């Protein structure tokens, strides 16, 4: 993984390890010492309202996503360790075009948010599932599972058409993206990082544990990248900017699509956020609900970590366009 070097968070000294540099155990020790020293010095900057608000949102995004990430990583490790590759060959149609809808609708049974679906989709590809089908699953699972649909129904009481519209538009996005990948995707763009490789003689339980640790360290790091981005935008962009464009039908769709990308709200919560966006048209809110689980900064970071930056750079923008079009189209018919 030679993606961009990690940007140090505030309060963390810039001690990113170089290859053949200091041993990582020593680096960790230096970081911990620096934290201890700063803890006692407590510079005044830590008490600035902006720094505190940023920190609260950053910690909140990480904490909110962590249980879902852990769940996804456990499930993904279980697939890698216990489910033989032949199982997927048996249940999925062999042609990618036919496998896409099956995998897309299978997303309805994974109760989690987008943080859980990325590691699972990664392990599906490693298990020999055709990438087009795994990507359809990746997009549909966080958007159409029962928990998310129930949350949407609760957030929009008396508007069942919003639940239906969300379901249809999200399935549409998953299928279109799966088929697009089956038609135009190139294997070279997709670099699924190697998972944990079981050593000869290693017990299954240790394989499982090592796979979990491997995925937690990979995906967890990228989750933090997303948290840093979301916290920064959340603290920097005032709400008044949003309300200023609520009346324009085109701008409001674009602004809520952009908001879904940068806020990186968990898909199980985004319906409540959409409901609170008073003044925006139902279609613009639907765009928010459809874009959020498919493309957001946290998700882009996780995808870059799991499938490689070349993949994320192509997949995320196309998904964004498809998601906006699907939501506007479904919204025009249903809402």
């Amino acid at each position, binding site marked *: 993984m030679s993606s961009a070097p990690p940007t140090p968070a505030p309060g963390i000294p810039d001690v990113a390890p170089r290859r053949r540099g200091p041993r990582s155990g020593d680096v960790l020790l230096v970081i911990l010492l620096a934290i201890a020293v700063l803890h006692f010095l407590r510079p005044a900057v830590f008490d600035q*309202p902006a*720094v505190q608000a940023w*920190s609260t949102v950053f*910690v*909140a995004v990480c904490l909110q996503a962590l249980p879902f990430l852990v769940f996804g990583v456990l499930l993904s490790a279980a697939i890698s360790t216990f489910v033989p590759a032949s199982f997927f060959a048996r249940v999925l149609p062999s042609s990618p075009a036919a496998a896409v809808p099956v995998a897309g609708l299978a997303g309805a049974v994974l109760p989690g948010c987008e943080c859980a679906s990325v590691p699972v989709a990664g392990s599906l590809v490693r298990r020999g599932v055709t990438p087009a089908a795994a990507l359809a699953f990746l997009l549909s699972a966080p958007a159409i599972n029962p928990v998310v649909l129930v949350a949407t129904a609760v957030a929009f009481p008396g508007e069942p058409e919003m639940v239906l519209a969300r379901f249809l538009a999200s399935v549409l996005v998953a299928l279109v993206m799966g088929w697009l990948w089956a038609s135009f995707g190139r294997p070279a763009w997709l670099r699924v990082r190697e998972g944990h490789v079981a*050593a000869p003689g290693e017990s299954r339980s240790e394989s499982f544990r090592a796979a979990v640790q491997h995925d937690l*360290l990979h995906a967890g790091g990228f989750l*933090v990248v997303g948290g840093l981005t979301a916290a920064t935008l959340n603290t920097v962009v005032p709400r008044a900017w949003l309300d200023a464009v609520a009346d324009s039908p085109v701008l409001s769709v674009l602004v809520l699509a952009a908001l879904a990308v940068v806020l990186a*709200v968990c898909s199980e919560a985004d319906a*409540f956020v959409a409901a609170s966006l008073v003044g925006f048209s139902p279609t613009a809110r639907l765009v928010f609900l459809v874009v959020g689980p498919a493309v957001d900064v946290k998700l882009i970071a996780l995808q870059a970590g799991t499938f490689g930056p070349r993949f994320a750079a192509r997949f995320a923008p196309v998904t964004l366009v498809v998601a906006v079009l699907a939501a506007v189209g479904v919204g025009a018919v249903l809402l």
Partner: protein
Amino acid sequence: MDRMTGHAVLLLLGCYVLQVAVTDAHLAYVQGGFRPFLLVAALVLIAVALLGLLRAWRLRRAAAPDEQSGDGNGHDHDHDHGHGAPRVAWLLVAPAAVLALVAPPALGSFTVARQTAPIELPGGVADTLGPDDPGQDFRTLPLVQYGWRALSDDVSPLVDRRIRLTGFVTPREGGGWYVSRIAISCCAADAVGITVVVDGEQGDLAPDQWVEVIGTWAPPVTHPSGGFPEAVIAPVSVQLIDPPADTYQG
């Protein structure tokens, strides 16, 4: 990052998440109902790290000491596995470091000043207000409920009633100050400010100070920059209070 450091980083993060989940600290970041999920996640992190450490220790004992130093030797070649974690895994230290250093409190007036939205009026007619609090001459209302009642077309249930509101102080441009709360639907990233204008001088009330305002309905005013109507309370008394354990309000 070598394998041993990976165990340590997961252990560090797991312990911080556990601490936040066990204490009330998590209420500043997520909904209270999310605590069991945080506990499970923390325990998984800690278990994965401890089992990894245990295994490394066993391997170390079983092998010649100079051959398996366990914590890598700078060339990143573990004996039993392919490779260590990527550099991005170092970022997992960041949430623990921010918790340790800033210990960020629940969002307050800074966020309210930037993320306040107009109060949405629910459809239908406002029903009656209900009786006063037991033994008191006022009725306690959540801010958001007072807000939409005070802005609705029919304010007759509020007239001649004393209302008690609790929240923290946020300064206001253009006269008066706000008694305010933050509503979160899932975590602090989706925070929205809820405000009611207190028609009076802020005086020496500091921002983020928690107060109890008892007062009566007054006609709405217009938000100085947003242009939307804001609910107003004319204070009879303002008391300083301690913040509640869970400061957020639905």
